[in-house]
């Protein structure tokens, strides 16, 4: 758990204590009333709305109101229509949902949107567009480091995160950086080559 000061309040009255209190209520409800009743209760509370969040998404401030359980991946994809970030397993095992949170690669399916409150989030859309690809994106195309393309956004973001803090990574560091990104089509050798080429090109990847 990060320190409380790492999660500046977005100004909407959301506090850690509030979240913990909510969880406690949940536990009691679950123990006493059973799953079905709990589900009904949750649905009612959803209808009542959630808590406000404000993040800097790809350089622009984004605001929204989300219930506490909403993940960053859900907020990006469902509320803000940023579907470039994919969801492959919903438990941090495949890496398709990787985004940069304050420059660090994280699984957005395991990050609550409220934990991103007040912070900088960079998604695949923030790195570049088909019309103006970032160097690492271009390197992926050049090395044919993709097939079906579903793991690709996460893979690209992991590499971008690596290159931002380590502009000349060793082959081992590249393998390590994408160790949490599964690709079933088998594009890893292309990914290594792409990362290497982008590093050699020596452009700032931040």
């Amino acid at each position, binding site marked *: 758990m990060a320190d409380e000061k790492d999660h500046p309040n977005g100004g909407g009255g959301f506090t850690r204590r509030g979240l913990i209190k909510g969880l406690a209520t949940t536990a009691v409800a679950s123990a006493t009333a059973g799953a079905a009743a709990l589900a009904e209760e949750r649905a009612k509370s959803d209808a009542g709305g959630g808590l406000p969040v404000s993040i800097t998404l790809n350089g622009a401030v984004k605001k929204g109101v989300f219930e506490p359980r909403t993940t960053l991946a859900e907020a990006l994809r469902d509320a803000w229509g940023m579907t470039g970030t994919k969801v*492959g397993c919903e438990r941090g095992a495949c890496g398709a949902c990787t985004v940069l949170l304050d420059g660090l690669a994280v699984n957005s399916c395991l990050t609550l949107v409220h934990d991103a409150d007040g912070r900088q989030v960079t998604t695949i859309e923030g790195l570049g567009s088909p019309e103006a690809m970032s160097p690492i994106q271009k390197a992926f195309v050049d090395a044919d480091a993709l097939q079906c393309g579903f793991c690709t956004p996460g893979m690209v973001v992991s590499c971008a995160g690596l290159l931002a803090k380590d502009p000349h990574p060793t082959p081992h560091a590249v393998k390590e950086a994408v160790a949490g990104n599964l690709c079933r089509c088998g594009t890893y050798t292309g990914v290594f080559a792409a990362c290497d080429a982008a590093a050699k090109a020596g452009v700032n990847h931040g």
Partner: protein
Amino acid sequence: MAEEKKTEKDKEKISVKVPEAAANAVTVEIGLAPPYPSKKISISLPPGDPAPYRVGERLVTGRRRLRLDGPEKVTGRAVFTHDARKAGMLHAAVVRSPHAHATIVSIDASRAERMPGVVIENPGKKVVRYHGEAVLALAAPTRAGAEDALRAVKVTYDVLPHTVSLAAARKEGAPLVFQKQVEEKRSAGDEPGAAAVLPQTGNVRGPKRSGTGDVDKAFAEADGTLEIVTTTSVQTHVPLETHSLYAEWVGDTLEVQASTQGTFSVRDELAEVFKLSKDKVVVRAEFTGGGFGAKFGAGDYGVFAAKLAKKAGKPVLMALDRKAEHLSAGNRPDSWNRVKLGYRKDGTVTAADYESFGTAGVATGTGTGGFVKAAYGFPAVKVAESDVFTHLGPGCAMRAPGHPQGCFAVETALEELASRLGMDPLALRLKNDPSEVRRAEWEIGAREIGWSRRPEITKANDAAAASGSPLRRGLGCAASLWYTFVAPGSQVLVRIHRDGTVEVENGVQDIGGGVRTPIAMVVAEEMGLPVASLRVKIGDSRYPFGPASGGSVTIGSLIPAVRAAAVHAREKLMGVAAKVLGEPESEVRIAGGLFSAKGKTADFRKVCSRLPGETVVATGDRAKDYDGADTRLFGAQFAEVVVDVETGVVAVKKVVAVHDCGQPVWKTGVESQIRGGILQGISYALFEERVVDERSGRVMNPDVEFYKILGSKDTPEIVPLLVDFYPGKNNAHARGIGEPATVPTAAAVANAIAHATGIRPTALPITPARILDLLGKLPKREVRA
């Protein structure tokens, strides 16, 4: 037989009546490019089909280039089915059975029904036969809301006895999965061939018998026989995008976006279920996040989505979660294989007796006997294949169905034979390989991997053992076998606009192979235009028919039709160009986007601006295959591994793969397919194992944490190579490459481990525990087979 003969005679009569057939006779050179000998054959060109490419004729195709779908995929712009979003859209979810076998006593969905915006589809099932089987589907305005509603549904089950392992299900008195005879369900991913009516005893369906020659006689005359048993585990496809389908009713039309390998197979299935004509179901599949054989139909999930959408009057997105994907959306069946070889002292295999059992859970199609019958051409082969039903999710086609399993069995037996006879494993294979193509591949691959180092490596391993070092190195090889299947009926449309825009349309889907690029390259080749200038439009059932992508059929089925369409379009433009240039049509040439005749030139746009109509439209059909080379696809692979004999950990260092892809269209894509097939093969060899708890009948690892698949750190150096081969058969010498590299990888890795350690792995995956067990380094205890 009598009837067949009559038909042949009729064909002869027809060919006499139609003089064009003789006029279309052309000579085709087939075989490997020099220095290997080729042969010339005479074929009769199908009407309207261009003559096949001659050796060295191609300028654009056959080369490497960037994929056209790259920029969209690396920037998140590509919209997958998971990404379908529309105002008012509902998210669907499915209540699934926690039991392996149970009757459904009651379903109370009243609480869920009262939740805001929830719609429910209850198919009224009475029995569930596997953990994860769908019981009821619902949809709600948010994904979280759908999950809440799921938890509010109360299902009461009466749990029944189950059987979940191959061994247990075969026993007499095992709980029966089906009471009645089961007919084989076929999908677009299967090998073509009639589904046989087979005997069914208990849970065992079969055996399905096939083969050639007199095996018993050959065994009696053999210098010796050798028998081994191999087993393989269930492999799950794990496409990164789970099975998903977005459904929306627009008037009486069902509009669908599907994560599928078959735009048209999904359309046809939905049209049948909802009793709609084919034009009333529109399926789009521009980007599919992997399939590997599991995504051909609409699936129960897709039908649920369409029904829920109808009920709600709103669009519905059904995307399976990872757990449901593992439990219910298909897998490569496990297998038990017994292979007995008869051989002569010089290493010639004279006969093979082969038996397989496998479980596809509640489905069929577990046979693994294809490889032994066709890979080497042993003179006498006897095959008996049986499906065993268990209370587990249905298996289905997966990248070269049955072949990695069969290859592992046969190539392990050959390795054992080489070791018994004291022969070099590659020499033994050459002794038994009649394929000219593969003999060339063995030679190329052996050079690339450095096979001649093998004796030195053996010596170094001995020295390492003597000095107490734990690392051993090994080289292994195995043959690949697949086939050139053609999905008939493919058609391509080329439309040229007055402003010079060229559109190419076919309904085929992109599942990762990047089919847009080879389509564009072929049109570019024929029309002399830059590849990137072409607008390739795919993934829509309103476009002309295209093949389902499975069994390596896409390129071979589609590319000849693309070429025919492009040639027809070019022919139509030539007349216009001749008028613009003021020269006879026969003098007009096109290259680099420029028409020319007798030194005069006109650019493509200028000629298009003079079109008689607003557009020129040309189509091309996939003509039937004509004469040419063997329809089998041959390949040879080599693996180099390092094994730590103290921990049992294997590191694959290098894989060399030499394959036949006819004349490749887009070499970059071919190489990527080979790399992918190899990585899935290594994953199969070393890691992938579905674990089922026999007592509860539940799958214990329906996820990607504990169902381990290969990752970045397990990736070796890969060298994909192609033989330069002209097989004939179609106008582009086109052949597929999706399956072949998957077939021999596990066997080559296993044989390399055998070389490194002296053990003979006979069970996949070859985990550290299994290696240590075979090395006698585990304390005595029962090890799971």
